[in-house]
């Protein structure tokens, strides 16, 4: 039955209930205990009940076409685009193992057991043959992680578990769809020959791998295209969507896994595209991808709710109950067995708690429902299957979804009562945790490190040359400058009562030393409690890359890294500023991150000096005019990399126009030529790039956002230098100093190597 979409009712329903979901997010408390999918289904149920009571037909019916062509791609693209790539590739083996083998295990297990009980006469389902059972089993094997990820987000589950669940969902969708089409085809045949089975298996692999290949191909094509879009910024997002969708459609055309294709396309192209397109386009793409994905998903849940009420159900106690039982059983068994096999190959094996999370987190969702709903009518017991699927989905989503959070919290060892812990312990423990995270990153604690390194070399030498544009247009600078988030960050610097970079200033440092010891303060218990609260709320969390990506309906949040980076820049600027005033202070005091005896006069001095200059010129502070300072490289090396890091991103954003505009006011620069802004940038950037390509080796997902931020920051500083408009939040130092200041004249820069 394919009713036409009734636009009025359908549209109205969609929009107003989507707003309701948004409303739920505002009231955070609900979403803690009730996962979002529950809410969506509930609303669908309510609407369905209303419709049923007025005897109206449901507004729209999912047809196979509508689902597969319009609703599934956005969901999958959303998942694929925001997949944390580095984490994913570290765990790709496990993810694929669970997704492919796990789904197969589930389908076959459930299918066969259901077929076994079909023989029991009491249930009255003898007419379902093996193929149909397998088909049904394939449908309900597809896991949907929405609820699970919502929960994981707040409990800081370890990254490995997170990425396995996330990846498993994604690829199990693909596997399920493949199995679905395979079994549909088989179910319609009267007799199944062994060669058909064998062909089926072979086809499975062809389809899967072919999908991946297609996806990667389209990803590269998309990346390549964006290389040339510098003149037509506005259509960049369109290109991305077009290529992704094209990958999907072409894969469908050739009957290979379209989900795999679009996911691989998104994974491949994201890295290169984000470098090529303008900031605005990048933001647009992310927002639209998220939006479309959210809409699609909620629509499907909505239909689920409506259909539950309004269709004729065929209820069969035996079949449905056994389905539920087998679903749990086989999932639990599957996770156990699969983990046993894969644990020896993993660098960080799964413990029992992880396995429980995996097993219990196997919620079914949107895809299962849609697949069931679009079963061909030739299947005799289609209605039973639909009812059973809905029952399984509702059961898992509501019961498991709501109970998973308390269960996981129960299992996790609770921290000791915080009031008993001293402040010391809290602070020092956090320090130790940060240290360990840093050391782990330093050691590159992942396997396949060798391959990653190789791939990175290949990437830098060949791929990046082809796929990434050499120079970017200037309009991106303007866009960068106006970047709202950056201004927000600056506002943070401005408005917070304590300066974000406020370690005690040097003056007060000296003052404190001279002061007699301050009278001992006594702290009440209440003060202590406040302190504990303050610390626990405000101390930076350990690098948890997962947190940034977990919310399905929100964009990645990178406030913490941004704050840290901003503070480092401010620290360096400040240390330079103070250094110029009081050179008598021992160096250790100047550099808030460095130990004493720091010998900065090493062979890197020339490079550092260069960036020292950068920072100074970028600062709004007027320096005393002492050129001698530059002869001693005094820059803290810890900061040296930061500008390096930033400037290397600048190589892609030559600020020719900006500097041209500001040329008249800008400082004179070195390199022995009368510096115009543009020639400055030209001479700088190519050498920059040559030198600083290597640092991109390790640049990956988590740093991508940062680079954009750094870029934007750097740009803003440049603008300030050019003094085109009043800086939004910096202290109002006379900008003219920049001109007259001979400090801004740079010494000769000798490119390293």
């Amino acid at each position: 039955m394919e009713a036409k979409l009734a636009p009025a009712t359908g549209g109205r329903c969609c929009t107003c209930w989507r707003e309701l979901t948004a409303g739920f997010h505002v009231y955070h408390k609900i979403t803690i205990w009730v996962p979002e999918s529950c809410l969506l289904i509930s609303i669908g149920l309510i609407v369905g009940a209303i419709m049923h009571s007025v005897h109206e037909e449901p507004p729209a019916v999912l047809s196979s076409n509508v689902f597969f062509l319009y609703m599934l791609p956005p969901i999958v693209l959303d998942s694929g685009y925001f997949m944390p790539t580095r984490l994913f590739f570290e765990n790709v083996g496990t993810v694929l193992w669970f997704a492919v083998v796990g789904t197969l295990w589930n389908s076959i297990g459930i299918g066969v057991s259901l077929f076994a009980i079909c023989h029991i006469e009491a249930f009255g389902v003898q007419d379902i043959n093996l193929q149909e059972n397998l088909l049904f089993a394939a449908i309900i094997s597809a896991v949907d992680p929405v609820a699970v990820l919502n929960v994981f987000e707040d409990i800081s589950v370890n990254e490995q578990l997170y990425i396995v669940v996330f990846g498993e969902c994604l690829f199990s969708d693909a596997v399920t769809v493949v199995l679905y089409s395979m079994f549909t085809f088989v179910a319609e045949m009267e007799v199944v020959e062994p060669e058909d089975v064998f062909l089926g298996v072979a086809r499975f692999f062809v389809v899967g791998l072919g999908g991946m290949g297609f996806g990667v191909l389209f990803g590269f094509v998309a990346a390549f295209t964006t290389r040339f879009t510098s003149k037509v910024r506005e259509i960049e997002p369109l290109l991305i969507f077009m290529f992704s969708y094209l990958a999907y459609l072409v894969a469908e055309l050739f009957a290979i896994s379209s989900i795999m294709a679009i996911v691989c396309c998104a994974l491949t192209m994201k890295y290169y595209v984000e470098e090529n397109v303008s900031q605005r386009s990048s933001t647009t793409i992310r927002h639209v991808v998220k939006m479309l994905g959210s809409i699609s998903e909620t629509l499907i849940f909505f239909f689920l709710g409506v259909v539950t009420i309004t269709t004729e159900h065929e209820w069969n106690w035996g079949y449905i109950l056994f389905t539920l039982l087998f679903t749990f059983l086989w999932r639990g068994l599957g996770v156990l067995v699969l983990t046993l096999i894969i644990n020896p190959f993993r660098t960080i094996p799964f413990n029992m708690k992880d396995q429980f999370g995996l097993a219990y987190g196997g919620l079914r969702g949107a895809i299962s429902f849609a697949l069931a709903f679009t079963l061909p009518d030739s299947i005799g017991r289609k209605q039973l299957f639909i009812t059973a699927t809905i029952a399984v989905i509702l059961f898992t989503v509501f019961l498991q979804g709501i109970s998973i959070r308390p269960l996981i919290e129960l299992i996790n060892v609770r921290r000791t009562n915080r009031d008993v812990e001293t402040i010391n312990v809290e602070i020092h423990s956090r320090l130790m945790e940060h240290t360990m995270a840093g050391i782990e990153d330093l050691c590159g604690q992942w396997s396949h490190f060798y391959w990653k390194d190789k791939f990175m070399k290949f990437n830098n030498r060949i791929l990046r040359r082809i796929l990434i544009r050499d120079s970017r247009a200037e309009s991106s600078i303007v866009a960068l400058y106006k970047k709202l988030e950056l201004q927000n960050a600056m506002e943070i610097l401005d408005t917070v009562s304590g300066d974000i970079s406020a370690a005690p200033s040097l003056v007060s440092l000296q003052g404190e030393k001279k002061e007699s010891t301050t009278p001992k303060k006594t702290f009440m218990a209440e003060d202590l409690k406040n302190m504990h609260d303050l610390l626990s709320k405000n101390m930076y969390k350990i690098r948890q890359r997962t947190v940034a990506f977990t919310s399905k309906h929100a964009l990645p949040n990178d406030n913490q890294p941004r704050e840290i980076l901003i503070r480092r820049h401010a620290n360096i600027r400040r240390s330079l500023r103070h250094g110029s005033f009081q050179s008598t202070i021992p160096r250790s005091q100047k550099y808030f991150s460095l130990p004493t005896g720091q010998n900065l006069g090493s062979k890197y001095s020339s490079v550092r000096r260069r960036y020292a200059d950068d920072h100074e010129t970028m600062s709004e502070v007027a320096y005393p005019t002492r050129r001698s300072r530059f002869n001693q490289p005094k820059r803290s090396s810890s900061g040296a990399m930061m500008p390096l890091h930033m400037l290397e991103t600048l190589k892609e954003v030559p600020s020719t126009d900006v500097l041209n505009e500001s040329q008249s006011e800008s400082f004179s620069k070195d390199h022995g030529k009368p510096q115009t802004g543009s020639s400055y940038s030209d001479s700088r950037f190519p050498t920059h790039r040559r030198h600083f390509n290597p640092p991109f080796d390790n640049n990956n997902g988590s740093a991508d956002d940062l680079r954009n931020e750094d870029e934007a920051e750097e740009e803003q500083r440049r603008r300030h230098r050019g003094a085109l408009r009043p800086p939004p939040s910096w202290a109002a130092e006379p900008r003219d100093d920049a001109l007259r200041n001979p400090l801004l004249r740079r010494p000769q820069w000798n490119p390293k190597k």
Partner: protein
Amino acid sequence: MGSRASTLLREEEIEEIKKETGFSHSQITRLYSRFTSLDKGENGTLSREDFQRIPELAINPLGDRIINAFFPEGEDQVNFKGFMRTLAHFRPIEDNEKNKNPPATEPLNSRTNKLLFAFRLYDLDRDDKISRDELLQVLRMMVGVNISDDQLGSIADRTIQEADTNGDSCISFQEFIKVLEKVDVEQKMSIRFLH
């Protein structure tokens, strides 16, 4: 990976490092390949820039200090031995080591040495005391923007008050050890090094 790295790292060196740090042969070779991949200049030593290229360290609040811990006083380069020596602090303490007769010199990954590493992250000027200012600096690095100077100051005061037993308003290393006696430092400051 394995073969290329081993030829550059001589067997005697591996043995030395093994004796000094307690790492196994495979762990040492693996870390050596990591060392070489970080060493862009390919001169057998790492500089600060090499470390700072690791993006995750850039967004670690204590990134700079961790990097500095690798460099001995006043030096800018660290060779592989020094690299391993610092990393040895984070080796887990194995049970069989606890039972053996204590070696002549304290192993690098003993509880005291682990605590010393943490202590040195605070104590920049190496005067064996954490002053209020040093504590404030680190606190500020670890904490976000929403805490005012006053609040942070009182937190620092309270911290010193809790730990300070000899009344000099600084935390000495002994006081540091004492205040963390209930914390499972061995577990907190160890990572599983891969083979």
